[in-house]
């Protein structure tokens, strides 16, 4: 009986996920030009690559040109598929009162936002592939292809990273239930991500002490770890996975708590 119940629940979950994904995807397809522009706005790792290639500083921490190229190209890919904007859209929905009907539906609004992000990522695939092909056509010597097993593992890692980042932003997005302009906090959340995740410089280039401190924050696991894995660098795989799951659990708890608290606040406001 219990098993039967579980199977029914699982089937319902898959069905709702599928329909949410399909509907959000068709919504995203409407905004093709926007998605191309969003994808183009992720060129920062490539600009940083050209700077690092021209600088002799990279040899200090033992990266040659090939490793640099692979690292930043992987960062570019990971960055494309882990973009999170839940704070902005959630705030908009609360201010304009769209969240109230969502709350009446028999499904947590969390999934709506989560799947809209995933749908956007799917619609980005052709653009990213095109940019990669252009890049490799210009610099054929930097081409590499990871094994299929590694690609599969990479996808798993990247989706855990994405979910951690999504939950982090989700936790703070819940503040828009109580404050009107919570999305300005997004700027504050973006700054450590920009400097500590390995987006502008590989973590290996940081001074030893700062490297040690940074590894205690979630940021390197959001970008640097998946990128290094895709680039084929030596990484302590199991240890990193453990830490990844640890951060996932932490932000899952904070996300759920913030959601419960937020919904209570919201109803008490009577908006």
């Amino acid at each position: 009986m219990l098993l039967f119940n579980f199977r029914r629940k699982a089937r319902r979950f898959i069905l709702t996920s599928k329909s949410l994904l399909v509907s959000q995807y068709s919504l995203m397809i409407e905004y093709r030009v926007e998605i191309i522009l969003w994808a183009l706005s992720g060129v920062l790792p490539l600009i940083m690559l050209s700077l690092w290639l021209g600088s002799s500083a990279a040899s200090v921490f033992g990266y040659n040109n090939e490793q640099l190229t692979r690292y930043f190209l992987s960062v570019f890919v990971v960055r494309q598929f882990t973009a999170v904007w839940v704070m902005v859209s959630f705030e908009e929905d609360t201010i304009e009162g769209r969240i109230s009907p969502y709350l009446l539906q028999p499904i947590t609004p969390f999934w709506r936002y989560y799947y809209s992000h995933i749908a956007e990522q799917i619609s980005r695939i052709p653009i990213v592939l095109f940019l990669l092909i252009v890049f490799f056509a210009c610099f054929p010597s930097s081409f590499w292809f990871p094994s299929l097993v590694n690609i599969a593992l990479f996808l798993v890692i990247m989706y855990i990273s994405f979910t951690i980042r999504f939950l982090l932003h989700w936790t703070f997005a819940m503040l828009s239930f109580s404050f009107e302009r919570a999305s300005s906090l997004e700027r504050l959340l973006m700054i450590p991500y920009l400097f500590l995740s390995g987006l502008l410089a590989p973590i290996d280039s940081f001074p030893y002490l700062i490297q040690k401190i940074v590894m205690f924050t979630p940021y390197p696991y959001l970008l640097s770890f998946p990128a290094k894995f895709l680039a084929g660098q030596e990484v302590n795989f199991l240890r990193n996975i453990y830490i990844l799951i640890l951060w996932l659990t932490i932000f899952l708890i904070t996300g759920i708590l913030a959601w419960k608290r937020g919904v209570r606040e919201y109803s008490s406001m009577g908006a």
Partner: protein
Amino acid sequence: MIYKFFNITGLLCLFFKVSLSSQLEYKLNILVDVLASILNFIGSIFILSLFFTNGSNLGGWSWAETLIVLGIYNLLESFTISILQPNLTQIVRHVQQGTLDFVLLKPIDSQLWVSFRSISLWGLPSLLCGIILVSYGFYQSDYHFALTTICAFILLLSCSVVILYSLWFLLATTSIWFVKVWNATEVLKSLLMAGKYPIHAYPATLRLIFTYLIPIAFLTTIPAEAVLNRISVEMIVFTLCFTILFFCISRAFWIFALRFYTSASS
């Protein structure tokens, strides 16, 4: 003519006063933005320092000289945050909701109105960071102080402000045809990030692109060269001509685009 000038300055002062008082309503936001600017400042210097770990340089620029470039970037960023962002992103809303009609009907130049209607206080921390960086960089690099240097710097910095404004305005004007250009400004912002570093640090092809296609070199590197007394008179004249040309293009484009503006309801 003089009467008109005073009229416009008076109007601008009034615009700025109104927008400042409406912003002071969100005190938490101001705190967040000050904090964000300080963290951004520390982070940018940290990343820059990584390029100088083994006594190397960045495209022939020393540490102190690169700080001047970063400082000028900060100055321009403060201009973006306080003037460009609050105003030019509103053009999209005006087009979407049809309120551009009311702007066009006002007895004031429409470009002036849409560009300087409001001002944001949040640019101040960046402004301060920029001034600190430029003065520190200048103090550290052993170039003696001269009046001509200051004049050249102020002239070229004004040029870069005008170029930056024209770039943003060109992009914002396209919203008359494509309503959602907000994303395009994100692309521009991420490309402009390249201006944090001297143009000589980039490979030759990118240097060409960053000079003529997206004039990033004129934004930060050339004013920094003026501070360091490295710039020739020909280069100053060239920059001046380029700036005037760029501004005229953006102005002409606005007038051209308005011909295609059909109000939201029609």
